[in-house]
């Protein structure tokens, strides 16, 4: 009882000493930032503020009322957070300049903990939100829209470097280099984001272990999503849509190990999933539909377990570049499967080799693409099915499903 009373008193004293600063002009804002005490609240009224490089060095609550506009006039950046427990919400950040020396950003968070950035808008910012060596931060409900130029002169929407336990929820990112960029970020969560029309990747992931991303939509990005040099990633319930181009992939997985790819939808990508140097991945309950190549497994992948996925209306279900692979395919549904099921256990009685001769042929001679779906190509595939000689002998599904696997419906808010 006594401790509770003291606790109550503490809270009371806290709120009694905290001050609210109402700000209407730029000098007032600068003054408030200088003179405020820790845990004060700064309320910024609606208006247009021409500001540059404002540093936040103590725990503060920054609230924009009716979305005040903070304009950096392409001369520099806007907020630089150098303290923990800062919260920034309700602002509109515009016109952050572009340099090649420093990564200017709408909000930059440096070596801080517990920073919350939510309900803001970032328009024409070089970088939107930039986190560096910061932990336990929350980036939520932001709209980040850039004007893409060249890859070198465009920044990332949400950029995180060497962070831990970051949460990125419900953001919309458009027109940046990478929508969301992670490098050396661990134990983090990326959920419900929509990343689209970025010139490089919707999501770019490097050396970021133990991260999870779920319920995101990556649509029409220059090269899809890239996950590289990472272990223990969980990718669930995401939607990879319409990533078209010579080197565009739904997801590009490079040197990934011990990860789960579960219940994702890959629709109309040039290549749904591209796997290179991947080990011990579990891929299940995914739907690959209308892709040029559903799944591309390079020969340096091993021990991957691919089961209970549905492959429908892809031009090629699986492509590979080698002849021997050590990956396991089981219980997948292939719409090109032509076998039968005499014992009615729902599994085909003869195995299915998803790599067609024609796709092997295209591997060696891309020009042969002009023969796609011609009688000759079909004939070659049929002959190869009966007497396999060129296609990888052991890349096969021993128990292909006769009917599409029951995969729970996808539910994306767009």
């Amino acid at each position, binding site marked *: 009882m006594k401790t509770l009373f003291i606790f109550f008193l503490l809270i009371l004293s806290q709120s009694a000493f905290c001050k609210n600063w109402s700000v209407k002009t730029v000098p007032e804002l600068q003054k408030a930032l200088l003179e405020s005490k820790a845990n004060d609240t700064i309320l910024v009224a609606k208006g247009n503020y021409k500001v540059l490089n404002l540093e936040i060095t103590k725990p503060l609550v920054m609230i924009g009322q009716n979305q005040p506009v903070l304009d950096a006039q392409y001369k520099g950046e806007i907020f630089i957070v150098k303290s923990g427990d800062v919260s920034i919400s309700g602002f509109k950040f515009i016109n952050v300049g572009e340099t090649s020396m420093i990564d200017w950003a709408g909000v930059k968070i440096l070596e801080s903990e517990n920073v919350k950035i939510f309900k803001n808008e970032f328009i024409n910012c070089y970088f939107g939100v930039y986190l560096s060596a910061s932990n336990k931060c929350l980036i939520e409900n932001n709209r980040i829209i850039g004007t893409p130029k060249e890859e070198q002169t465009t920044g990332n929407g949400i950029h995180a470097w060497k962070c831990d336990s970051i949460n990125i929820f419900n953001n919309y990112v458009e027109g940046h280099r990478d929508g969301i960029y992670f490098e050396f970020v661990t134990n983090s969560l990326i959920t419900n984001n929509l990343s689209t029309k970025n010139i490089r990747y919707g999501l770019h992931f490097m050396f970021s272990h133990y991260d999870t991303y779920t319920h995101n939509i990556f649509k029409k990005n220059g090269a899809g999503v890239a996950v590289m040099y990472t272990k223990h990633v969980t990718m669930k319930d995401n939607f990879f849509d319409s990533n*078209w*181009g*010579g080197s*565009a992939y739904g997801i590009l997985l490079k040197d990934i190990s011990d990860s789960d790819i579960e219940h994702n939808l890959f629709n*109309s*990508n*040039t290549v749904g999933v591209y796997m290179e140097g991947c080990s011990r991945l579990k891929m299940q309950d995914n739907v690959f539909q*209308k*892709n*040029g*190549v559903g799944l591309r497994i390079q020969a340096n992948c091993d021990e991957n377990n691919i089961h209970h996925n549905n492959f*429908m*209306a892809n*031009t*090629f279900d699986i492509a590979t570049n080698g002849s021997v692979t050590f990956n396991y395919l089981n219980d997948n549904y292939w*719409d090109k499967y032509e076998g039968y099921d005499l014992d009615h256990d729902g599994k085909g009685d003869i195995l299915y080799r998803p790599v067609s001769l024609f796709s092997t042929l295209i591997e*060696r*001679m*891309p*020009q*042969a*693409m*002009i*023969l*796609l*779906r*011609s*009688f*000759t*190509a*079909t004939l070659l595939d049929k002959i190869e099915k009966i007497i396999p000689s060129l296609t990888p002998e052991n890349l096969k599904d021993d128990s292909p499903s006769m009917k599409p696997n029951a995969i729970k419906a996808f539910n994306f808010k767009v």
Partner: protein
Amino acid sequence: MKKTIKYVVYDIIRNRFVIGYTLLLLLLSVSFFWFEADPNKGLLSLLNIILMVIPLVSVIFSTIHFYNSYEFIELLSAQPMSRRTIYFSQFLGLCFSLGMAFLIGVGLPTLIFDGSMRGLTLVLGGLLITLTLVAIAFLASVITKDKAKAIGVALAVWFYLCILYDGMVLMVLVNMADYPMEKASLVFSALNPMDLARILVLMQLDVSALMGITGAVFQNFFSSTWGVFISFVLLLLWVITPVFFGYRIFSKKDL
């Protein structure tokens, strides 16, 4: 000329083969669209029919028809009519009946089930293939003297266009794999009406697969308005050229 075309069409319809052909195509197309949940797959199955069955039927039927109405042609030649009128009324009559059979049998269901650009491309490509094969059949008929030989020539042309040609292209590509063959393969595809029609339809269907590095070359050509225009002009040339040469021979032929 109109009158003779009317007689030719009347003659073909009385034969009942074309009606059966129309119904068969209609049945096939409707069942493809009904049994496949995805209209894309229905279109692909139809594409196979268009590339194999329709050329075969068109070329054989046209040749047989030409020889069956040989006596009628001889009779007409005795009348004060130019060889041009006789030849082209025969040709246009056949084009009309087989074209209508295709449009009702394949075109109608396709446009009902998938009335998008890809459906339209498929129908247009199929129609032009029908006309091309009729034209080739006429050429085969006028350069030979008897029916069996004409059917043989027609079948050989079908076999060449539908099966042999692609095999030869594949052989060339395999042997020349070390050279940049992108442009060359564009030319190869232009030299066969079947390939041209197939690629035009594929560009609408399998865009994502064709977007690879080589695919991009085709994509740039066949997806641009200019490329589509050139392809259709080439397909039309494939109709006009054999008809024209057939006419040249027919006008001097001793019937």
